[in-house]
């Protein structure tokens, strides 16, 4: 199996996410043993944000890191495990609510592809960028 980032790279729909991870300097952390649960927004999710949003974040690594860290939970949790709890604490500190089990919704994003197991964690693909607050 591959690491989370390698899995993402090979999928081909996470270019923006990977660029963001690099810009935020989180590559090293996400290559580590983890384990992590990562909610990975597809490229279309980033494109759906209003113009300039991503650019501003990319220009400011600490701020970008905060948004990205909100997409990561400590520990590797499958969909079933996630559905058992209403809130999970993200690495950023703010809680990530699980709003529905069927269809699987994390905050205001729908998980289009769940339980992609990797070496250092599990990835769930979401269709929107989730934001703390």
């Amino acid at each position, binding site marked *: 199996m591959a690491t989370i980032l390698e899995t993402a790279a090979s999928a081909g729909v996470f270019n923006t996410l990977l660029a963001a991870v690099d810009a935020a300097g989180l590559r090293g952390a996400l290559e580590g043993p983890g384990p992590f649960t990562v909610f990975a927004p597809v490229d279309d999710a980033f494109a*759906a*944000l*209003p*113009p*300039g*949003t991503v*650019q*501003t*974040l990319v*220009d*400011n690594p*600490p*701020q*970008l*890191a*905060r*948004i990205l860290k909100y997409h990561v939970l400590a520990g590797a949790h499958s969909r079933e495990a996630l559905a058992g709890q209403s809130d999970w604490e993200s690495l950023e*500190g703010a809680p990530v609510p699980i*709003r*529905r089990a069927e269809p699987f919704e994390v*905050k*205001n994003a729908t998980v289009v592809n769940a339980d992609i197991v990797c070496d250092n964690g599990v990835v769930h693909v979401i269709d929107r960028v989730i*934001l*703390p*607050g």
Partner: protein
Amino acid sequence: MTASLAPERTTAPLIPPSTHRYADVIHRLEAGGSMLPDTPENLKQIIGIYKAYAVPMDFYWRDLLYIAERVFLNPLPAFKYFISKEYLDLPNSYAGEQSKLRIWRGGEKAHPELLAFMERGETGRMPKLLHHLWHDRVNMEFAEACMQAMLWHQGMGGRFNDYLESDAYKANADRAIKAYFKGNPVMLGLYKLFPEMFLEQVRQLSYTANLGLFWEVMAPVFFEMSDIYDEGGFKGVPDAMDFLVNGIFAVAGRPIYHHVFIGGECFEIIPKGEGFTWLYEAALPYVEAVFYRTSPFRGTKSYNAQAHQVPDNQADFHYGILYADVYPVGSAGIPPTLLMQDMLHFLPPYLKEIYREHRRGEEDELVQLGITFQRSMYNVTSAVIQALRCALLYPLDDTDPEHLMANRRFFEAQMDRFLRPEARLSDIQSQDYR
């Protein structure tokens, strides 16, 4: 999600209508509109007042940064409003050719109308000191009152306030304080005796920087809106609101920091690396603290606790512009009226014409423009509400009824804040409210 929020709905609505008192407004919000009704006059009024607001704001943000970064802990800051040339010419990061994210097509320097006003004021050409003493100047006291509202209400969301109590902040502040008062045994001695007092001053200055950075963004947003309107680019109030929503998102990630310059050296009291963002640490706390809450104005409410005129619960404070009774404008002790006085100097001609034709014409322009300002701030609040909905909830054209109900609950919760009698939401629905 694209630039416009308005959904195309040709089928029957998926959820039953709301039964809230403000059901009309909620349905309008769900259709992508604003709390302010969409009429040509409303659009004209709010754009005009945005422009009139942005000109003094251009001064506010520069002077706030000047105070936070240069004046710093000056014990007798008699000249804190005498902004230095460097800060007056400080380039706005969101305007001009040099900006990385250009919001306004205009220049990065201070607005020419502002400079003209600083030269002449209402009285004429005089030495700056006389202008200052005569109070014929931009009323910075309003900006400081906004800052104090944010400082006092504290936990309005975001991490900013918690950081101000952290050890890292205290260490940073300590270094800066010691550097600032180097060679001043009296102040250093005072600092040893009363460290918390100095720290609190630094916290206040951090909020000053926060507000300055917040308004640095809002000024070019409003200038650009005025320019777009002049070209006919806005078809209605929802268009103006959408522009604000896009603007909010575009700048959401802007870092909030507090750097102080002492003796040529930069002290990072709040470094950018802490990750504070414009949206979470500046905009949302500002809206909550200044639009909704603010503080009761001396002279209009008794501060006597036994009189129970001021609510015990800070969350119940309702002295912001959204709840304001605009008539006392001009009375002493009401800082927002200082803003009305500032805006009076920069009204565009089409707005002056509206005021001349209604109520008492030029005699009560201050009250009329105050009410226009209230409408415009309801529009800004609508933009913030829509932006929050967009960030944390679902698109307006979502087909899942559960998502739509979540949106509905969110809107209703927002409208619940306007149920109290002082709220002006029902007043602004009518054009007669002037």
